[in-house]
């Protein structure tokens, strides 16, 4: 494999993804990422000179909604998704602010 993911990189990606990985999981993730990057290298062999970057697979533009309120108050249903709730709000661990 051409690409090598360092311990620092996998540590950093873990922090960004808020994941705590065991030593074994880190090694597995490193291998996965390396093969993904190798695949990207393969794609990079293509000559894309003069080709506009594509952001979407379909040739469709301008899909809009009109500005009309149609949603009703469904807070009871929505709050069923909260692991914990209090006074109709989602209850989460304390944030810094």
């Amino acid at each position, binding site marked *: 494999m051409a690409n090598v993911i360092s311990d620092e990189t996998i540590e950093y990606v873990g922090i*960004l993804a808020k994941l705590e990985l065991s030593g074994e999981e880190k090694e597995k993730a490193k291998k996965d990422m390396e093969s993904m990057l190798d695949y990207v290298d393969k794609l990079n062999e293509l000559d894309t000179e003069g080709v506009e970057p594509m952001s979407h697979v379909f040739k469709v533009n301008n899909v*809009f909604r009109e*500005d*009309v309120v149609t949603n009703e108050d469904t807070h009871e249903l929505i709050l069923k998704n909260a692991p914990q709730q209090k006074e109709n709000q989602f*209850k*989460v661990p304390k*944030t810094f602010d």
Partner: protein
Amino acid sequence: MEKEYETVIGLEVHVELATKTKIFCSCSTEFGGAPNTHTCPVCTGMPGSLPVLNRQVVEYAIAVGLATNCDITQYCKFDRKNYFYPDNPQNYQISQLYLPICRNGHVEIEVNGSKKNVGIHEIHMEEDAGKLIHDEWEDCTLVDYNRSGVPLIEIVSEPDMRNAEEVIAYLEKLRTTIQYLGASDCKLQEGSMRADVNLSVREVGSDKFGTRTEMKNLNSFKAIARAIKGERERQIELIEEGKKVVQETRRWDDNKEYSYAMRSKEDAQDYRYFPEPDLVPIFIDSDWLKRVKAAQPELREEKLLRYEKEYDIPRDDALIITESRKMADIFEETTKLCGDAKKTANWLIGETMRLVKENEMDVADISFSPENLAKLIKIVSKGEINNIVAKEVFEEIFKNDIDPEKYVEEKGLKSVNDEGTLKEVIQKIVDENPKSVEDYKNGKKKAIGFLVGQTMKAMKGKADPAAVNKILGEILNAV
């Protein structure tokens, strides 16, 4: 010799757009609803839900871009900004990084009589986050997602400002322009307009920028002015001590008048933006642009010029009237109905502004109709009521939008201009006050004021002062 420093300031201004629904779902954007009553699977980030863009958001963004001399990016799209925080249920914010809808604009500001352009780097569309409330009892955080997905535009300026006065002039300019467009109410206190200040200092004459910090939590013009002063001093102190300014986000505490670093170093600012796959690109063709341009209302600068020319209103008065579109609309409508621009201007600048201040209101909340103010101006001009009564009637118009003609009729407030009645009353006052008459005869011209006052009192304020003065003069001179 002591070194002289220059402050370099750029602003990131977030504005909540005045749409009825959120940017990507049909939930209401109404402010102040009970927690989570304006939410759905889209704005709470439920797996499998898909965003659909609100057309009105694009319309408002284009309108603001055109009014601030920006180039509109005809082919633009959204990007995903990834970060974990409970105010953001998707774990990403849909925003624009690579192709923001507006770029390369500017607005003109005026400080102490000198004009200057402040560049606008870009304006992009994005979604607002939910509201976090700290729960003291359980030492946890509660989240209300009513604000999650409310449409925002972020206006990023160039680092073109050098002091707090310029910053405030720039913010006021943006606020008036956006209010005129009807794109937002721009209330700093309620958070529908929020400004982050990027500030660095450098030695005067240097052409390199110093290291900048970003300050958040500024919710009034006064707080912004204090924060700029405080942060400038903090940075100069660091430099003078031979220390380095660290590029970081700081939170301004307006009570302590000091800013505090907000994010720790371990908390990496790496947003890993990528094109938003759930939304298709936006193509703004020239027809669409033309349509928005044509619908653009007359903005403040144009009104100022027209008011001086068309209505012969002094610039200082025109500045007060055009400060908000609401006031300007009332002025134009009333003038059209009563045909007297000067009197309309006087009522608005004088009594209306006095009552707005007295009631601690916002001009936008004025609710009387131009029809009733126009009627009042007409009946005063006809001499049907005098100025004192008119002010009382106006207070009723201001408060309850009453019809002044009916009100004057019902309350019997019409001036008595019938000479016979007036003469009778005045003669009686003159007879009852021989001392004042004597004073007047002896050259104390002021004594006439007392007699006018007594007459007005006897008439319960309903006499025309000009007529009273005239008749009183005649009677006194005949004594």
